[in-house]
């Protein structure tokens, strides 16, 4: 089991954003976390990726406890993520964005930089190569010289995924990757995500677009008001009355 979350709790003042949640993310699979708004999905991601210190519970990556570690340490242990409002480094070109994503694999320091050591030059070249490869994987290599401010939403999301992938993570957390893009773009992204898993990276995604979730996921976990209310395969979840109830009686469409 790649990621094992046990009895996770996250309290903000009196609000239990995440309440006693158990969740497993197996290697080589796509696990989706769904739930109505305010269910605690993003908070869950923030805890796993280190942006929030959990109030209680355990988060183990390959057996190693990562709960409460700072984000950069968790990234170095192999967890990468994208953000709900797609985050890229503004005022920079696409390639420059992704190059820096490889930094955690480099050891060059101040002295290397000033003395222009071989290590610096080798690592710099390697970062560039890997960045290009990641962009190619995500299908956006042709945009490498564009400033990120000028590319489309969908392209941004692909670049964000490339940025997350360039560090060769073992687990990729995708926070609403399909928000704000149309159907065609969504299926493109779905294909990309499948490619990611096939390349050996486990994926955990939070998403509202049900069809995408049903298509992609191997397993689905449903949260509501901080608690886990259901877990299973897409077929099981689709018919689970508690889940349907949680979505206010509406059947899962789109």
């Amino acid at each position: 089991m790649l990621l094992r979350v046990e009895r996770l709790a996250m309290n903000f003042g009196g609000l239990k954003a995440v309440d006693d949640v158990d969740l497993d993310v197996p290697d080589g699979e796509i696990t989706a976390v769904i739930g109505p708004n305010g269910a605690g999905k993003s908070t869950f991601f923030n805890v796993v990726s280190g942006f929030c210190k959990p109030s209680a519970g355990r988060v183990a990556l390959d057996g190693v406890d990562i709960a409460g570690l700072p984000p950069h340490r968790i990234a170095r242990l192999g967890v990468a993520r994208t953000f709900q409002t797609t985050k890229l480094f503004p005022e920079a070109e696409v390639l420059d964005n992704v190059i820096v994503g490889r930094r955690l694999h480099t050891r060059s320091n101040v002295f290397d930089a000033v003395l222009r050591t071989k290590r610096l030059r080798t690592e710099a070249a390697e970062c560039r190569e890997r960045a290009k490869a990641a962009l190619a994987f995500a299908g956006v290599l042709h945009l490498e010289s564009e400033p990120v401010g000028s590319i489309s939403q969908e392209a941004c999301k692909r670049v964000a995924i490339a940025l997350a992938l360039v560090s060769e993570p073992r687990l990729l957390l995708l926070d609403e990757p399909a928000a704000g893009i149309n159907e065609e773009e969504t299926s493109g992204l779905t294909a990309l995500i499948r490619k990611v898993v096939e390349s050996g990276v486990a994926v955990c995604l939070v998403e509202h677009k049900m069809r995408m979730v049903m298509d992609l996921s191997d397993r689905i976990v449903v949260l509501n008001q901080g608690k886990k209310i259901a877990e299973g395969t897409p077929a099981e979840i689709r018919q689970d009355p508690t889940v349907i109830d949680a979505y206010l009686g509406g059947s899962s469409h789109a």
Partner: protein
Amino acid sequence: MEFPRARGVGVSLLLLTAIVFPLIVDNPYLVSVVVTAYVTAIAVYGLDVMLGYTGQLSLAQGGFFGVGGYTAGILMASYDVSFWIALPVAVAMTSALGYLIGLAALRTRGDYFAIFTLAVGVMIVIIIERWEDVTGGTDGLIGVPAPSGVGPLQFDSLTAQYYLILFFLVVTIYVVWSLMDSLVGRTFVAVRNSEELARAVGIDAGRTHQLAFVLSAALAGLGGVLYAVFLGYIGPAMGGVQMTFMMLVYLMIGGVASLAGPLLGTLLVTGLMQVLQAFAEYQMMALGPILVVVIIFFPHGLAGLAGHAKRLFQRRGG
């Protein structure tokens, strides 16, 4: 090295001009103005490391400049320490101070960081002024000697000191350039552009800020040492908020996050101030609105106008 051709030629030409300058210009006053500009520019490069590349406004820069100058000045004038020892000691001390202050200051960002560093700058001056026995209080310290000779080289003359300081300026520019145009520089810029995202991709933002802050303090200290040695004197005004403000003006006019910006801005503004010496009283009155205009309409300064600021990161080795 991976300079594009044109850049390499340009830099060589500038370097040549700088080297030849004191030999062809027969005006010692002008030469010393240029030297003071060089010295201040070193500290401005330090300010740029923090502001231009890491995105934080450190208002303690003048204070560190003063600490460097006073440390060296006291060692050399009061304790007869050789310049060649006093310099590294002073720079080390300023860096250490920067590190210590950073431990507290860098727990904050943005406005709180600016306020805190402003307070640090003010406190440094107050301490300098109060510690009269050591620093000479508000009168300052006179009698800082010229650097002692090394082998056949003597540093008593204006020309020799010009080259000595030019040497340190070139080293400074090289260090800043080589750092910023490398993976290390990319880290700084990433943290500047989005600290949260930088953390998410494995960058230790705290350590990055610390490194930038210590470096900027070290450069300010270096500038301070050379200033004290060149003038033979150091006073509390050199460590004050006004000094920080002037450095900020030079940097913003020259252009943040650019190779030439800090030097260009410093030379240009000090040059203008010399030319307009008759209006010296109105200096602050004029520079204030100029800074406001620059920040509103030309935030990337002159270098930005020439498109150089961004170029640093375009498709080269680092």
